[in-house]
């Protein structure tokens, strides 16, 4: 295969779009990490549940795609908050305050991830379902050099930017956002300042799970939706969060884009069947040589 500049450009464009979706999931993981000091191993399942909620809303209830997106985000946020309230909160209390003994939380999240996947079989079945969405009102983009970008990719880019701007506005310019940042910074002092810390933690969890659900609904029309999809997404989102520096929100998006490009280029120029390994490879390389991430500040070691 000769070197073709146009196809390289196409791979990069698709890599960026997929990467933004990884970035959205990574954003949630980073949010939970900075807010609760835990690494949420069941976040891929929130993404999967979000995709299925969106699918059920769009196909069975018959609402238009944007409504399905918002509905799925709300439903998944409620699910996430319930899981946090019933299971994780108990564990965080056992550790004293809201900091957690690392191993217990990791094992708990791991078990929760497996339990959620298999609970999903009950409701959604084992078949991969195509997500049919009517996206004709979105223009197709054509880049120079005859690169056609499908509607779903354009939509993904638009909605991702909207979500990120919304999150940034919420965290930086509203009073509740300030409270969330205070909780992430120091829970004890936030308590003393009269912030309702448990409520804020629920809010953080809900936000993070809502973001994961948005990613699930966005990726639905590009790939099909199935129960086992959460696990690989979790690994890639972790890779994105680590590459961007764990706990850093802009880093999560940049990391996601890097993972997306890396993966697409690897699949195109090295070997397509090893596609899913490249993200791990990047993850391990970054962890070993620059644990604080490529864009991150000094890594907070919390375990």
């Amino acid at each position, binding site marked *: 295969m000769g070197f073709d500049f146009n196809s390289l450009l196409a791979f990069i464009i698709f890599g960026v779009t997929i990467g933004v979706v990884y970035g959205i999931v990574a954003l949630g993981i980073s949010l939970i*990490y900075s807010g609760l000091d*835990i*690494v949420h*191993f069941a976040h891929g399942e929130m993404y999967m549940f979000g995709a299925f909620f969106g699918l059920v809303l769009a196909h069975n209830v018959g609402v238009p795609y944007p409504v399905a997106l918002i509905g799925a985000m709300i439903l998944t946020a409620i699910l996430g908050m319930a899981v946090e309230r019933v*299971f994780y909160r*108990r*564990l965080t209390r*056992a550790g004293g305050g809201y900091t957690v003994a*690392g*191993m*217990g939380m*990791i*094992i*708990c999240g*791991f*078990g*929760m*991830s*497996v*339990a*959620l*996947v*298999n*609970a999903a*079989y*009950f409701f959604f*079945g*084992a078949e991969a379902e195509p997500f049919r969405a009517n996206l004709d009102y979105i223009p197709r983009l054509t880049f120079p050099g005859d690169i056609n970008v499908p509607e779903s990719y354009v939509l993904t880019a638009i909605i991702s930017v909207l979500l990120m701007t919304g999150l940034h506005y919420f965290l930086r310019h509203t009073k509740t956002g300030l409270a969330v940042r205070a909780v992430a910074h120091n829970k004890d002092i936030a308590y003393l300042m009269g912030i309702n810390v448990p409520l804020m933690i629920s809010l953080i969890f809900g936000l993070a799970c809502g973001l994961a659900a948005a990613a699930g609904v966005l990726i639905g029309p590009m790939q099909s939706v199935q129960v086992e999809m959460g*696990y690989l997404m979790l*690994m890639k989102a*972790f*890779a994105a969060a*680590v590459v961007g520096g*764990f706990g850093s929100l802009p880093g999560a998006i940049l990391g996601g884009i890097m993972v997306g490009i890396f993966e697409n280029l690897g699949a195109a120029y090295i070997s397509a*069947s*090893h596609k*899913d*390994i490249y993200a*791990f*490879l990047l*993850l*391990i390389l970054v*962890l*070993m040589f620059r*644990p604080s991430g490529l864009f991150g500040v000094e*890594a907070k*070691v*919390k*375990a």
Partner: protein
Amino acid sequence: MVFLSRIADLIDALASRHRLLPWLIAYLMLLPLPFIMSTFFNSYLIDLANRSCLFILLAVGLNIVKGFCGQVTVGHIGLYAIGAVTSAVLSLEPGGFGGALGFGLPVWVSIPIAVLVTAFAGLIVGLPSVRLEGAYLALATLGLGESVRIFIAVTPALGSSTGLMMIPAPSIGSFVFDSFTSYYYLVMTAALVGIYFSFSILRSATGRAFQAIREDTIAASVNGINVIKYKLLAFVLSAIYAGLAGALFAHMPPGYLHHNNFTVIEMVTLLLMVVLGGIGNVWGGVIGAIVVTIAYDQTKDLVVYFMDRPIVIQPLVFGLSMVLLVLFMPRGIGGWFEGVLRNRRFIKRSEEKLGGTARNS
């Protein structure tokens, strides 16, 4: 309780004669197990016992790095896979089925090589632990473990989707370990020796260094413990256990290996064993391995019909029980066990002080 402490008394009495005496008696008691099983129950139980022994090896090995040294690793099943595939590929005849690699080495050569290769892989898995802690380390090891499985799944030379078949069984002279019963002696011996060495490690200076690192890494380094060396050593030791278990698994009677044996579910099963037994407790790990292997086997085909869909509920049950165990029984069976034994030791010491009246008064 009383029964347990009687047994403990007996073991103490035996151990005072010779250190290895209780182990020898345990070995002798385990020897007739396959015959009891095949006479009174059915011979399928022997296969179950074999798999329990392999999982005992794995769980005890995982305990060294996780329980003794306090490093969170969730990629252990990847090491198991490396051990299994290396030994299988080395011992297969060249030009095997479906483009699988083969070197045709004798089994007794391929198993030690597989263990060495796995030990080296353990060193690589352990390298991130030098710089990373807690959740970061869990991520790195999860990534490594899963990439091993995906690599096996997409590489035809290592069996890819068809798996490796006709893996030869080990033999001594003309005696071939190709039945469940004969293989039982191989894996049972390995498991018992593995448990014994695990205790030896725990009691040695190395074991104390591991525990010091677990409790406080900085304090350990101040006390002159080479933290990097001992962390890597813990990973290598546990990798040796995993490699041996994997190699023995590869040559087990059906002689068939598929990458589905190394999925996340297996990792959850393995973690559940260690968590159920109590992290850091050797006997707890052994009990956990036996209980979970039996539970795994019994619930494997349990299917619930929900809206006309057959659903395998085993992973759901395993995942949830792991969550609930961490929440409500964080010290596991081993923790309870240890509490009883500590009580007993306490009573004994008070008896010695008070001249044997403490129990009755």
